[in-house]
C-alpha cells in the first residue's frame, strides 16, 4: 500500500535535515504504529507524505499503490486515497463543518471521475457517522474545529476519515488530549474502518491507544530514522522502560 524508501527530508528554509533515510512499508490490511521521542520526525514524516509546504525531499521515494505521491499536489494525494489525521487540527472560522465535509467528499469523487453525492445521501451518511462518534448536530453546524475542545477536534478528524474512506490512513497522535471515553470512541471509529484493502500508520506516544487499536507492526523512530521494528510487544517495552535502552543499543 504505502512504500517509503530511504526518505531524506530537510527544511526548505534552512539547512536542517530532519528525516535521514526512512524505510517503511505498510501493507494493505495492516496497522503499523510509530513511536518515538519528541522531535524525532514523526509528524514531519506525516506532513511530507501528505504534501505540506516547507520541506524538501533530498533523497528517496514514497509511493501509494505504486504511484509516486511526492510529485503530487496535496489534494491529488487525498484523492489517491491518502489521509492524515492531524496532530493539531486547524480551526477555520467562517467555513461550516458540513460545507467543508461535503466539499471534500465531492472534490475527491470528482477527482476520481465519480459522481457527486446527492445532498440527501450525504446528510444521511454524515448523521450516521457523526452519531457513532457522538458528534452532535450542533458541532456539525459550527465552523470547522472552531472553538472545539481538544477531544472534539480529534473526533472531528475521525469523522472526516470515516466520510472520506481513504485507503491509507495516517493518524498523528490522535489519542493525545482524549479522555478515556473519547479514546474508546475514536478507537472504535478506527477499528470500524479496518479492512483488507486499507492500511494504517498510527503515530502515538502511548501503549494505551494500542490496546484499543491492535497494531500488527510497531516501529521506533529516533533522529529521523526507523531504528527498530517489531511486534506489539515493542510498544510494551517502551511503556515499561522508555526509549533509553532501545536508543542506547541502536543509536549510540
Amino acid at each position, binding site marked *: 500500500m504505502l512504500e517509503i524508501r530511504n526518505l531524506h527530508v530537510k527544511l526548505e528554509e534552512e539547512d536542517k535535515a530532519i528525516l535521514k533515510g526512512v524505510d517503511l512499508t505498510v501493507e494493505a490490511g495492516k496497522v503499523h504504529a510509530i513511536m518515538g521521542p519528541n522531535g524525532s520526525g514523526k509528524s514531519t514524516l506525516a506532513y511530507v507524505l*501528505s*504534501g*505540506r*509546504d516547507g520541506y524538501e525531499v533530498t533523497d528517496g521515494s514514497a509511493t501509494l499503490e505504486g504511484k509516486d505521491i511526492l510529485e503530487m*499536489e*496535496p*489534494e491529488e*494525494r*487525498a*484523492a489517491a486515497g491518502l489521509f*492524515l489525521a*492531524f496532530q493539531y*487540527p*486547524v480551526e*477555520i*472560522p*467562517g*467555513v461550516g463543518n458540513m*460545507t*467543508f465535509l461535503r*466539499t*471534500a467528499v465531492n*472534490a*475527491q469523487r470528482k*477527482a476520481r471521475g465519480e459522481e457527486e453525492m446527492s445532498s440527501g445521501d450525504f446528510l444521511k451518511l454524515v448523521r450516521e457517522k457523526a452519531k457513532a462518534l457522538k458528534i452532535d448536530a450542533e458541532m456539525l453546524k459550527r*465552523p*470547522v474545529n472552531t472553538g472545539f475542545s481538544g477531544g472534539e477536534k480529534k473526533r472531528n478528524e475521525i469523522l*472526516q476519515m470515516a466520510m*472520506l474512506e481513504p485507503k491509507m490512513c495516517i493518524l498523528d497522535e490522535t489519542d493525545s488530549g482524549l479522555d478515556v471515553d473519547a479514546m474508546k470512541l475514536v478507537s472504535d471509529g478506527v477499528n470500524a474502518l479496518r479492512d483488507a484493502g486499507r492500511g494504517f500508520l498510527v503515530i502515538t506516544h502511548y501503549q494505551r491507544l494500542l490496546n484499543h487499536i491492535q497494531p500488527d507492526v510497531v516501529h521506533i523512530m529516533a533522529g529521523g530514522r526507523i531504528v527498530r521494528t517489531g511486534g506489539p510487544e515493542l510498544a510494551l517495552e517502551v511503556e515499561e522502560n522508555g526509549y533509553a535502552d532501545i536508543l542506547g543499543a541502536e543509536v549510540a
Partner: protein
Amino acid sequence: MQSRRQRIDEQKRGLAEKRLAAVSLPAGGAWATAARQEARQRLLDAGLPVRQDEYWRFTNPGLFTDAGVAAAELLPADDREAVFAGVDCLRIVFVDGVFDAARSGDLAAAGIEIERLADAATRDIHWARELYGKLEAQCQSPVARPLATLNTATAGDGLVIRVGKPVERPVSVSYLRKDAGAEAVLHHVIRLEPGSRLTLLEDGPGAARFSSVAEVEVGDGAAFHHVRVQGRDHGRQAVTALFVRLGTASVCKSFTLTANGRLTRNEVMAELTGREGVLHVAGAAVGDGTAFHQDDTVFITHAAERCESRQVFKKVLRRGAVGVFQGKILVHPEAQLTDGYQISQALLLDESCQFLAKPELEIYADDVKCSHGSTSGAIDPDMLFYLRARGIGIEEAQRLLVLAFLAEALDEIEDDTLAEEIRRRLAGWLERHRA
C-alpha cells in the same frame, strides 16, 4: 507671505469655483433652490477636498473634483440575473442618474410616501425641506464632507421617502448606465416615523461618475435596513455619503458590497441621539488590479447612553488593488454605557496589494466598552493546507477561505435571503477573478 495652509485653502476654493461653474443648478421650487444655493455658498467657503486634507491622504479626490468626467467603459451585458431580481420589492430605476418611469414601479401605489425629489422640489411646502441638506450641513463638523455639499448643491433628482409604519416590501433602487461618459448626482431624503420600518436596496454602477447622498432620519423605535451592491463596471467612479440620525431605541443596519470600480469612496456619518440606539455599518469590497481603489470612511457619534455601534469592514484585494478604511467612534461625555466595536481587515491575495487603515477612538465618557482592530494578511497557509489535505483543490479551497474571511461582514445583513444573494455575488466574482 501666505502660509501653506492658506495656499491650500485657496486651492480648495478655486477647485470649488471651477467645479460649480461647470454645472448648472437644477431647476426646482423655492425650498429646494434655497437649499441648493445655501449649499453652494458653503462649498465656495470650504472648498473641495485635496490630497493634503487629513481624510484624503489615502485617496486622491482628483477624479471627483475635476470639472470634467473621466469616461468609464460600459461593462458588456451578460446573462447574469440582475441583483435582487428575485426579491419582491418596489423597483425604481435610474439610468445615468435619470429617473426611468417605464422601468420603475408605480410610486403612487407603493403604500408608502415616496416620490421623486424633482417632483417634491416643485412644491412650496414639503416635509423633505426639513431634512434636505440639513443632516449633511450638521455633519460638516468636526470633519468637512465637501463632496456631499457639492451633491446637495447640484443634485437634480433622487427620492424622498417617508414611512409611517412597518413596511415589509423593500424599496429597491437600481442605478444603471447607458452613456460611457455620464455624470449622475442623486440625493435621497428618507424619514422613518417612530415605530416604522423600511428596507432599502440599492444596486448598480450608477454612472461614469456617480455621486449619491442619502439623509436618513430614523425615528424612535424605528428600523432602517440598507443593503447596497455597487456594481461591476471597472472604470466607474462613485462617491456616496450616508447621513443617519438615530432616535431612541432605533436601529440602522447598512451593508455595502463593492465589486470593481476605479474609485469608490463610501462615507457614513451617523449620530446616535437617543438611548439604546443600535447602529451597524458593514462592508465587503473585492478588487482586482491596480486600477481598483476603494475607500470606506465612517464617523459614528455616540451622543446618548446605552447605544451600540458596530463597524465591520472586509476587503479582498489582488493584483495591485488598494483598499482604505478610516473609521472613527466619537463618544460624548453623556454617552455612558456605550458599546462600540470596530474591525477592518484586508485579505491580500498577493504582495502587490495595499490596505491603508486609520481606526480612531475618541472617548469622553468613562463607563464605555469600545474595541477596535485592524489587520491585513494573506490566506492562512495552514488553513489552506488543511483543506487541500482533504482533497479540496487549491482554487476551491482559496474561494472557501475568502468567503469565510468575508463572513463576519455578511453576518451583519439581517435578512438571510439578502445575505445569501450577496454571498452568491461574491462567489461569482471569485470564480471570475481566479489566481
